[in-house]
């Protein structure tokens, strides 16, 4: 009888090795602790808690969430307690989880981005950084840096100098050419790019004739955006040499495998966490099964196998 060797699900994001390619996406995973009753957090490849800024932010006026066909429209507005409170109140718990902790951060100005990266670099227990230049809900959420290739380059290169940590840049899909932005991030020294953040969108209540969201415009996520996200991941993975992390409506292992075939080295689960806190674990198990069924031992063999 032939005994199958153990499966190797590990992937590399620059110098950061993940035990598997499944990452909990920022903004959908609270600060980790919200999920402790539901899953063994240490099984995930990495956790990215809700994004932080230098100073506390109170977020947008409610209503902040609206369900659409196969999607969620949100305008949370980056509510967060700020760096200090995060480091004091949230980090001690997160550090204890036996997986990689990646911190998502953003600023209003280049100076703030650089300062925050520097401060995060000085903390223990952080495996990497994910820089948000793509929040659609806040004018100062970095989108200005994420929609112009030159601005992206300037920001990424200056932040790069202030931290040694593995450095991911999270891209917005609300641009004409996402590959150009990804290349700028690469040239600026990013170790990886993650995409996509949410799509700018609105919903109108036909009875009150008013917007369904307090902020009028929100970001669309969930299964509804998956085919567009997948196309973008495929294009970007051909445009850059650094690893690409795929995000967009992943609800099950099959979705994740599509992203990996399209060229993603890892994937993030966002909306799926809200509906089924166990989504990440189910995706990991589903990927294992797929590899076994296809006689593959390593997930790395699967990356970019999309045949066109």
């Amino acid at each position: 009888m032939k005994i199958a060797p153990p499966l190797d699900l590990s992937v590399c994001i620059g110098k950061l090795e993940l035990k598997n390619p499944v990452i909990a996406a920022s903004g959908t995973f609270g600060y980790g602790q919200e999920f402790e009753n539901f899953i063994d957090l240490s099984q995930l490849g990495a956790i990215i808690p809700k994004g932080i800024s230098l100073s506390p932010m109170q977020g947008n006026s409610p209503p902040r969430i609206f369900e659409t066909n196969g999607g969620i429209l949100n305008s949370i507005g980056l509510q967060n307690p700020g760096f200090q409170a995060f480091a004091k109140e949230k980090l001690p718990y997160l550090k204890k989880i036996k997986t990689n902790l990646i911190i998502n951060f953003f600023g209003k100005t280049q100076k703030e981005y650089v300062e925050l990266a520097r401060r995060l670099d000085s903390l223990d227990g952080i495996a990497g950084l994910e820089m948000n230049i793509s929040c659609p809900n806040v004018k100062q959420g970095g989108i200005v840096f994420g929609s112009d290739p030159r601005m992206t380059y300037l920001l990424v290169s200056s932040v790069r100098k202030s931290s040694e940590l593995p450095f991911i840049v999270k891209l917005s899909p609300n641009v004409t050419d996402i590959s150009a932005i990804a290349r700028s991030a690469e040239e600026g020294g990013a170790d990886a790019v993650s995409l996509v953040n949410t799509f700018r969108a609105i919903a109108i209540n036909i009875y009150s004739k008013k917007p369904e969201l307090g902020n009028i415009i929100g970001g669309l996520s969930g299964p509804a955006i998956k085919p567009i996200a997948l196309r973008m991941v495929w294009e970007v993975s051909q445009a850059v040499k650094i690893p690409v992390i795929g995000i967009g409506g992943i609800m099950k292992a099959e979705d994740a495998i599509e992203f990996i075939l399209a060229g993603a080295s890892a994937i993030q689960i966002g909306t799926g966490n809200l509906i089924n806190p166990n989504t990440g674990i189910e995706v990991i198990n589903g990927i294992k099964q797929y590899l076994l069924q296809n006689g593959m031992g390593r997930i790395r063999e699967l990356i970019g196998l999309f045949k066109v």
Partner: protein
Amino acid sequence: MAIQTNGIVLKNIKIKSIYFLLEIDCPSIANETKPGQFVMLRTSDDNHPLLRRPFSIYKSHSNLDPRKGKRGHLFILYKKVGKGTQKMSTFKEGQKINLIGPLGNGFILPPLPSSTATILIGGGVGMASLSALGETLGFGELYVFIGGKTKDDILCEDNFPKGKVFIATEDGSRGKKGTVVDFFLSEIKRFDRDRPHHVYICGPEGMVKSLAKVIKSKKWIVQVSLEARMGCGFGACWGCVVKTRNNEMAYRRVCKDGPVFPLSEIVLER
């Protein structure tokens, strides 16, 4: 402690017009609940609708039949209004459904024994959590104000054998004609402003806002259970916030920091 688990539908019956009662065998949640808490129920296995739906726990019966092992039944009172509740109304006996719960803080109960009155004010399916609360109240005077647009919207009126029940409908088809808030206002003299009566409110946003204007006593201990569109229900997404007078964090989560808040703490907008 909230968990994610499967329950089995035992009964799913229409009680009147568009109101339904769902009974689920789900001991791990039913044995842990307290009044004012809720569950997030997945109404569909596919992504239509995508999000779970929040429902107050109407009743929970633990260990109904110890001979058959650990059992516990959970009851949900719901109104068929949208895609999710439409799907729910087709749930069949024996069907497996996925739940997360019990969630939220629940009501703070009045101290025992109490020399003050307990006043419950609710409308529509808001009566579900007040009914759960009413079941746990043992002593003292109990007053229950129930409102609705028509007689079909009056729920749970028989659930308060020890209480004095006041019913109001906007069309006058049952009880006093008018809103429950107007009815309460016309009876408010019964309750001394200077004594610490316990008031519990659950119902539509408009009703809560009107009550906030009517209740002037600073001595009353008023708790309100809020409704909100929710993303996750367990505090992760920050989608269901309400504005509060908390200086450090003005927007607090209805699902995790609530759904029950002191009336004096929340800022009702729009």
